[in-house]
């Protein structure tokens, strides 16, 4: 019997945390989660043109008494910086799952600069970061980080390492 993919455990943890909105710029590493959100009538999944839209959407969700999660790739973190002043100044929760590029078996050198600065940039902006390296730690980390973000009303990002996601292979 194949074990349940960790992505399904992550989805269950997000739903248990009360998440009802999800904003995303697509990433292959998030595709299973994105499908789960779209398939669930209790959830509203919103495709974004750029990641900072999701920061603002999550603020609106909070104002309306709901909870949003954002899914993005490390390259998208750079697009969010000024918009992060919204949840930080307004003391709102923010919860982001970031799939990492540019760090483990990366074939595309254009991914490396933002991949290298994702963690430091988020921390400099005031976002708490956690980093998952192994499948057996992801679900618990997401569940605890979601409680941290929503219950303490602070911005939190969980970085899902490229080793965990699996490096993209273009040449087979």
């Amino acid at each position, binding site marked *: 019997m194949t074990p349940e993919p960790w992505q399904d455990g992550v989805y269950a943890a997000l739903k248990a945390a009360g998440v009802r909105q999800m904003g995303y710029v697509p990433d292959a590493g998030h595709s299973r989660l994105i499908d789960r959100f779209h398939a669930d009538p209790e959830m509203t999944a919103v495709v974004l043109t750029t990641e900072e839209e999701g920061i603002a959407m999550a603020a609106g969700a909070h104002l309306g008494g709901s909870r949003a999660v954002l899914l993005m790739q490390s390259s998208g973190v750079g697009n969010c910086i000024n918009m992060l002043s919204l949840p930080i100044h307004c*003391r709102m929760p923010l919860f982001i799952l970031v799939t990492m590029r540019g760090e483990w078996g990366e074939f595309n050198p254009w991914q490396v600069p933002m991949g290298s600065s994702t963690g430091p940039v988020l921390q400099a902006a005031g976002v708490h970061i956690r980093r998952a390296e192994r499948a057996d730690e992801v679900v618990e980390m997401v569940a605890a980080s979601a409680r941290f973000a929503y219950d303490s009303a602070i911005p939190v990002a969980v970085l899902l390492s490229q080793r965990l996601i699996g490096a993209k292979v273009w040449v087979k």
Partner: protein
Amino acid sequence: MNNLSNALLDRRQVVATLLRDTADTPGGELLVVTGLGSTTYDAGAAGDRAENFYLWGAMGGALMIGLGLAIAQPDRRVLVITGDGEMLMGLGSLATTAAAKRPNLSIAVLDNGQFAETGHQSSHTAHGADLAAMARACGWSQGEIATDMPGVEALRPRLRREALFATIRISPEDVPRFLPPRDGANLATRFRAALGIAAS
């Protein structure tokens, strides 16, 4: 066409009209999000209320805050009031909100063709960019333009009942500064309290 020469509407009068009798809204008090800069001052000058969430930063985010709020409160009406410069920074959100299709979300863009806050530098709408046409092209089924007060009066009930994008041409003249509250945490807390959301 985008002709600003007849844009003589007073922005304070426009926003006071849009926000007149906010209780006269399906589902209860109109929920309002304003964009960084003059529209925040205009809404405050029209009468500070807990159901106004004023942006003093986060430029380009007003419409997306409206979307998150509209999804969270499907039985309430959300009106975003912002300026041409703020809307231009968040152009992608026209596509995102159109694709998300929320029947309880409308937006009014006050267009003076300028970045008034920073010294009246002309904006893209003064050079031909047509925000209502962009909204329609993104999938907003209604992209209206008002150039006089009867037009604004006609928009007022529609902005509370339809999923409407409206551009309102206003005078670029300066108006007396009015500064509504700017502590974001307090603004968020009182907004949520007005919706009956318990403090966490």
